[in-house]
């Protein structure tokens, strides 16, 4: 038997960062695609939100609102007062579902991020992984990216499909609401930032918890401020102008960095091998 290809024929070294990230992402995605439960849990929320949004806009276009509905709408959302009632209702509904779109990046990647760490814990694959000549920070970054990218892409695709559907089925007000600059910015800028927050929070929780369901319940709390801010924005109680939007984005970047730093602190070779059970 010849065990190897000869003395030092193959030389191991630290892989470059791009190769590491690509390898980890491909492995994680293959793993995720092989897990039907995970695929289902990941795709169900965006599919349901998208379908519900399209049906709601189509229903609003087909059925003119009653006077009672219009008064209720004006009371709930003072910002739409003065608009044609039919247009106002459609615009409100179209925007309301955009808030739900902001939930996709908080819900979808959380499950994948949690599985990414807790799955490795339960299958005892972390020790050989950590024995390789890669930095734990790089590994964590690669894992974080592996959960972030699909979620952002899924949200963007869902938004694109929603935009096309609203354009085909809804009124001009509905289209204007969906393509408002602050919502496009929210989709383009906030979705990746919220996804990163959710992913890193999931990783942070996973360093402390061994049960996927417990981790999901704790991580699910991230939706509360997002929903609150979204509802306040739609109803006109809080109007986020461009300056406030930029400030909010900066705060989110800072929170993302802080949560990643905390996750990095919890994700150390010594801790993982000595204390994680």
């Amino acid at each position: 038997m010849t065990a190897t290809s000869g003395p030092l024929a193959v030389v191991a070294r630290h892989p470059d960062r791009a190769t590491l990230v690509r390898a980890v992402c491909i492995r994680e995605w293959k793993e995720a695609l092989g897990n039907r439960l995970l695929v289902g849990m990941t795709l169900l929320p965006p599919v349901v939100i998208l379908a519900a949004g399209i049906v709601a806009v189509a229903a609003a276009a087909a059925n003119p609102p009653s006077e009672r509905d219009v008064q209720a709408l004006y009371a709930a959302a003072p910002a739409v007062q003065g608009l044609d009632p039919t247009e106002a209702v459609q615009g409100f509904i179209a925007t309301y579902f955009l808030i739900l779109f902001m939930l996709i990046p908080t819900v979808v990647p959380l499950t994948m991020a949690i599985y990414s760490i807790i799955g490795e814990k339960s299958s005892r694959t972390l020790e050989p992984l950590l024995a390789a000549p890669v930095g734990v920070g790089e590994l964590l970054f690669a894992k974080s990216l592996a959960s972030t990218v699909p979620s952002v892409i899924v949200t963007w695709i869902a938004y694109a499909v929603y935009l096309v559907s609203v354009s085909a089925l809804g009124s001009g007000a509905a289209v204007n609401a969906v393509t408002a600059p602050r919502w496009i910015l929210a989709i383009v800028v906030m979705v990746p930032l919220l996804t990163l927050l959710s992913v890193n929070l999931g990783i942070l929780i996973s360093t402390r918890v061994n049960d996927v369901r417990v981790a999901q319940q704790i991580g699910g709390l991230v939706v509360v401020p997002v929903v609150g801010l979204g509802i306040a924005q739609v109803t006109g109680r809080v109007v986020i102008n461009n300056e406030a939007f930029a400030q909010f984005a900066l705060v989110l970047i800072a929170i993302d960095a802080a949560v990643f730093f905390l996750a990095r602190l919890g994700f150390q070779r010594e801790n993982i091998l000595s204390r994680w059970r």
Partner: protein
Amino acid sequence: MVSVLRTEGLTKRFGSLVAVDAVDLDVREGEVFGYLGPNGAGKTTTLRLLCALIAPSSGRAEVGGFRLGRDDGQIRSIVGILTEQPGLYERQSAWDNLVFFGTLYGLSAGTARVQTERFLRLMGLWERRGDAVATFSRGMKQKMAIARAALHEPRILFLDEPTTGLDPDAAKTVREFIIALRGEGRTVFLCTHNLDEADRLCDRIAFFRHRVIRTDTADQLRAELYGRATEFRLLPSPRAEDLARVRAVPGVRDARFENGSIIVETPDPLRTNPLLVRALVDGGARIAFVTERKPHLEDVYLRIVEGRE
């Protein structure tokens, strides 16, 4: 031979528990070094220390010329480790598992594929390369884990219980692999409870219980603890006068009957055994076999580690 791994006072504490206590080791390049000790003695902790997976509380170590604590990345590049659990990605194929780890060790895509094919063939898993690891038997998973540990052709391979739970055929493949590694000048650090395997494979053995109690070759330890004994099997069974003749030969330290044979202890068997054969033949005895009497390594282990006679 050149040292490839040296430790001085290497210690690891977890709170008040001292798992590894001031360990001094000197492992030579190209040897199979056995590390024997009871469960909970700190063997796995030692392995993790030497593979730069955890940091020592005190002491120092050099692995392949790299200093532990300073050159941890380089150390991880030149060592391979087989952990207690195979730790494979069960949903993924054998091929994907190995190529992924090859990439983590910095092998180019082409080299990772070539090495993956080599090791899958070597371990007899090539035909199953596309199957999910979850469908593999325990022995196949263990062979996969060994392939993964050796994929980047490390200078030192740390193996933690490599044949535990394997059927005889798979265990033989693993043992042949270890022998082949030694033949190519690579160093194997072998933790095992299988004393027969350690006896067959290891050039030297360290007996360990939180600290290294003794390091030497198995034969040297046997000779030191039990002397060197030769068994004379006679046909028919030996008589009292045969034993008397044997005892009269110069250089014999002890002679006794045991299970129908005469067991003779002597410090210099090369010189004494021909005299013993002549004495027995001259006395009319018919000698069927003359064999070296080796105490089982288990006896040596129990005496050194457990302090049992």
